[in-house]
């Protein structure tokens, strides 16, 4: 087939009213988040001391940071799924998540002083956290990668890494309702490690699945 003939065939294929990629991604992510949220509530459950103000505040902060990271990962994965696009403003939510965590750590050091920080960092449920977050993240990761196949990332692995971060953020926000390790140092150490693992898996899968 000559190139001119191919052009004729392409021109005969009319534009379709496709939903934008961001819409597809959100439509994929929302039910995935709802599913793992529900499963988690039934199988694991919310922390028992949630009625305590200090527990509620810490849970809210953890969920907030996780949600910002999820939004940041999603924004970057979407942006990097369009050819020729630079991250630009799409990097802002992720920067905000990191800034929020840094502020929280600074606030905790100001309030409690440096004494005992290794104990707060190690926490009590690190293994649980490191298991449950990646496990739950598999569901939103699969949904998100499926949606991103409509995109065209110049570097599929990079887009997949941020999709992994988004999935881990969703899973971490759910896990935060159960987690009783309330120090931001714990979040910095273990939530991040869990997110890194999911991010790596996302990159690995995307290098195959998001090629176009």
């Amino acid at each position: 087939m000559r190139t001119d003939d191919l052009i004729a065939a392409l021109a005969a294929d009319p534009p379709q009213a496709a939903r934008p990629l961001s819409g597809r991604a959100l439509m994929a992510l929302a039910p995935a988040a709802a599913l793992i949220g529900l499963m988690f509530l039934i199988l694991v459950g919310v922390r028992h001391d949630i009625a305590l103000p200090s527990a509620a505040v810490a849970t809210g902060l953890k969920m907030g940071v996780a949600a910002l990271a999820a939004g940041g990962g999603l924004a970057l994965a979407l942006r990097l799924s369009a050819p020729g696009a630079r991250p630009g403003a799409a990097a802002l939510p992720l920067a905000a998540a990191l800034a929020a965590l840094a502020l929280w750590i600074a606030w905790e050091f100001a309030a409690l002083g440096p004494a005992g920080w290794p104990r707060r960092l190690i926490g009590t449920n690190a293994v649980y956290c490191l298991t449950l977050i990646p496990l739950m993240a598999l569901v939103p990761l699969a949904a998100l990668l499926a949606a991103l196949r409509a995109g065209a990332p110049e570097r599929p692995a990079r887009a997949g890494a941020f999709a992994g971060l988004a999935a881990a953020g969703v899973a971490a926000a759910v896990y935060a309702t159960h987690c009783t390790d309330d120090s931001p140092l714990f979040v910095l150490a273990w939530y991040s490690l869990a997110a890194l693992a999911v991010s790596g898996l996302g990159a690995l899968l995307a290098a195959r699945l998001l090629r176009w």
Partner: protein
Amino acid sequence: MRAARAGDEAAYRRFLAEAAPLARAAARAALARAGRGNAEVEDIVQETLLAIHLKRDTWSEDRPIGPWLNAIARYKLIDALRRRGARDAVPIDDLIDALPAPQGEPHADADVRRLVDRLPERSRRIVLAMSIEGRAAAEVGRELEMSEGAVRVALHRALKQLAELYRKADDAH
């Protein structure tokens, strides 16, 4: 492209016809740098056009189209060179000046790779009827006893399969 999105077929055809020489020039330069002949140029151009078409929704109207086009051409070029590279990656950089200059467009009119022939029978007939024979969907539909809409859906699917064949063509070797 904006007009094409609104359904202006002629404008879309012009847009693709302008994109083709850009992709061709880029492919030719890259193949020359890699010390390879022009035999693959038209393959890469066609693969790039298919990608532009199938991924056209990734261009958003508030961004310039140039970087978008360049990025697609670059991605397809790198992909093609990487896939085909393993087969004949002979380091002849030093000889490049001694090689005869590329002649014209040896393959522009030839069926470079008969990938269309590997499509399922009905898809192949629809693609050929609407490209080489330049016939309308309604007419093709009457002949194949399909509705015009079904022909268009089948064409879209066939173009996707064709892009897939391009991507896999070299892995098979």
